[in-house]
């Protein structure tokens, strides 16, 4: 079978200038070329040209990339080293598929109901939830104390997944100005239910009637990270078809990762005559929640939040979606809130999906740099639009004994509106 692999044009023109080394979180921790974007591009090229074996070592270097995409942004030639690292994982899965990935990404993750069910009997350890793989990887490659370390610091698991609680239609307060489709991601539903509930309240308060389809599948990012591009495609098809049933103006995600993946659906199907147009139509509607809210006339929140707030840019928003001004703009609407920019706000926090488990040491080093920068601001609240980042930051801050709160920026907006108690009358 012919392997699907990166085209020559995606790596050939690397001039090896080395600019990407300056911005790569893994390079900056290990200070060795093998852990750098340029190194990974060189390994990709040599591997695909047959000058190096596609050995376990070589593939492991591809898993060493945190896919923060800082290298994609800085490359003067337009090479996307982070994307190449992901593509090489797919090459490997085609050559030597791993059965457990089939179980996790197809069996468990594709159906929200199954994932929710799986959460039940595994209450204790499976509370790691978003890190869906923990159960498996713990057996494979983790020391149990690391798991305990992480698990103890996870957010309180909501009583019930938000998917089960939310009505399919949330009516706008007053006249409906926008019909919104809400993409309720797994992590938000299972672990940050209250924050997504806040998102819906803010949308409704601003004239949005929100439809939340319950039969969506995973956005596809976890499967992509583990080299199962085939599953990403099937998940994408399902999600496109689901939203086609509803007549919505905009599809909103309040998870940076989901949003960034949904925005890639058009490029996934660019050469598929059956799906190209449908994917492009879907893609054209997708917005991160802060991106959408910053673009419409918003009701002025009347509540005050007396706190010093900083914002951490999730890679999947800043890099993948170029959304970074918008969340700051939303925060600036809140009276009493003192915003302070942290140094290197757009530097990866080291969460990187499940890498905080599979690459625990690297993840912690990257996180430490982020925590130093956060502490410099002396902020009471750290806002960030990504559930993975929030868990990582919360874990790190707790470990250091820093009492700061970590929330989605839209949650703060919701609080300023009076939250779920409806204190602010419309």
């Amino acid at each position: 079978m012919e392997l699907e692999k990166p085209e020559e044009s995606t790596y050939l023109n690397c001039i090896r200038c080395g600019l990407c080394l300056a911005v790569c979180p893994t390079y900056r921790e290990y200070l060795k070329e093998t852990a750098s974007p340029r190194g990974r591009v060189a390994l990709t090229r040599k591997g695909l040209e047959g000058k190096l074996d596609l050995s376990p070592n070589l593939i492991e270097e591809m898993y060493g990339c945190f896919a923060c995409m800082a290298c994609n942004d800085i490359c003067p030639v337009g090479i996307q080293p982070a994307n190449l690292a992901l593509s090489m994982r797919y090459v490997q899965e085609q050559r030597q598929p791993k059965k457990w990935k089939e179980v996790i990404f197809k069996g468990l993750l594709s159906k929200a109901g199954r994932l929710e069910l799986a959460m039940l009997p595994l209450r204790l350890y499976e509370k790691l939830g978003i890190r869906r793989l923990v159960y498996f990887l713990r057996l494979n490659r983790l020391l149990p104390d690391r798991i305990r370390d992480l698990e103890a610091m996870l957010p309180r698991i909501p009583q019930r997944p938000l998917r089960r609680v939310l009505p399919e239609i949330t009516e706008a307060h007053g006249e409906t100005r926008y019909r919104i489709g809400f993409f309720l991601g797994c992590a938000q539903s299972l672990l940050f239910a209250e924050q997504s509930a806040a998102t819906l309240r803010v949308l409704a308060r601003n004239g949005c009637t929100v439809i939340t389809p319950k039969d969506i599948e995973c956005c596809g990012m976890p499967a992509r990270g583990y080299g199962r591009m085939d599953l990403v495609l099937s998940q994408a098809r399902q999600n496109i078809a689901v939203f086609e049933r509803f007549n919505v103006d905009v599809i909103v995600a309040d998870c940076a990762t989901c949003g960034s993946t949904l925005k890639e659906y058009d490029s996934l199907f660019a050469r598929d005559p059956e799906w190209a147009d449908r994917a492009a139509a879907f893609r054209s509607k997708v917005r991160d929640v802060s991106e959408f809210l910053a673009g419409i006339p918003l009701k002025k929140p009347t509540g005050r939040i007396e706190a010093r707030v900083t914002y951490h840019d999730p890679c999947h928003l800043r890099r993948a979606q170029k959304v970074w001004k918008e969340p700051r703009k939303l925060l600036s609407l809140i009276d009493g809130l003192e915003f302070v920019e942290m140094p290197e706000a757009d530097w990866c926090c080291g969460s990187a999906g499940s890498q905080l488990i599979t690459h625990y040491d690297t993840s912690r080093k990257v996180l430490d740099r982020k925590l130093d920068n956060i502490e410099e601001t002396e902020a009471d609240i750290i806002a960030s639009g990504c559930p993975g980042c929030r868990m990582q930051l919360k874990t790190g801050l707790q470990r250091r004994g820093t009492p700061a709160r970590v929330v989605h920026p839209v949650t703060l907006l919701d609080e300023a509106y009076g939250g779920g108690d409806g204190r602010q009358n419309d």
Partner: protein
Amino acid sequence: MIEKLAKILGYDGVLCTPEDLAVYSYDGTFAEGVPRAVVLPETTGQTSEIVKLAAEARIPLVARGMGSGLAAGSVPINSESIVICFTRMNRILEIDAQNATVQAEAGVVTADLQAEVEKQGLFYPPDPSSIRHSTIGGNIACNAGGPRCLKYGVTSNYLLGLTVVLADGRILKTGGKPIKDVTGYNLTSMFASSEGTLGLITEALLRLVARPTQVRTALAEFDSLANASHTVNAILAEGIVPATLELVDQTAIVCIEEAMHLGLATDVEAVLIIETDGSDESTVVREIDAIGRICRESGARTVKVAKTGEERDGLWKARRSVGSSLARKAPNKLGEDITVPRSAIPEVVERLRGISAKHGLPIAIFGHAGDGNLHPNILFDKRNPEQWSKVQRMMGEIFEAALSVGGTLSGEHGVGVLKRPYFEHALGTVSVDVQRRIKHALDPLNILNPGKMFED
């Protein structure tokens, strides 16, 4: 050998998988050579022990920083080589505000060093374009320059002292904090641009200046390249020394515009990007105004002075994106850095265009016109053997053009492997003989980066 190295550095500091070796086979050029091992020392002491081990076993040592070099100086061309990479020696040891000096290990990234000293109102001026992805050690070993060198000078002008591990493992300390020091030969200078052939630089003591607080930037477009070149001399003749005086030719402008869509006029023959800086606003403004006037008098079609920081970034964006815009045009580019007397710039540019036309491969020209340092970049595809042989001939002709007007092969990148064939022709036999003797005196076993600069 690996065992012995690991004893010094721990297994974390010795790399030898095929993947590790593959990624230490290159620098910022197309040249490649796979080493037998890579070591990442964290102290001068470890470096010394590695050198002793290598000397005993007669193993070549190739010093490397972040591998951004443009002359293949850190490419391990001998497969027996051990690459000794200093990126983990990245501590800034002391910033002495009173004496305006900084003591840093070789692996400190230059931009990081600048950021740290600027926090204290001090300034380290050398600004190679690789500033964020090159190290102080590499900057010294290649005596790096950059746009600001017109006013501020190159790396060696800021060098007060060095810690160097010699070829027998002994540790040499040169210089010190005094600005004046004529006690003996100037060994510190000798190691600048030595490209890892005389010793391994592990620490440096650098001189700092006060940080300029005012900057003004102008962009001038010229219908004639000759006029642009004459303008350079006219500005300097008025007694104004801009911080930078950059030239970009039409071929490069067209490439930038194709890649970046910045709205540059593609029918001009050249643009100059000129910057003045200092601590007194009125002086800096007066200078940029005078420069604008001189440009117009010398035939500039338009002169734009940036009014805001954003506009300034916009002007620099064009200059900074030259290299990348070129790289989008062809799989390979060979960027040279010939340096000629300023007055000869028009003539050399004319000859470069002739070379391009004769061989049918594009040459884009840009560079630091203020100090006569030009970067002719040949665009080609190395996989095409016919093009590759043309490139080699063109390279020779470019060097010949520079030498014929009293210029030099390299203003910034160094000799490494790529300019080695032209070394003796450029310098003459006496100079090369003296340099060989110095090399032999310091490295009699020829284990320090052998095959670089000199033919073996």
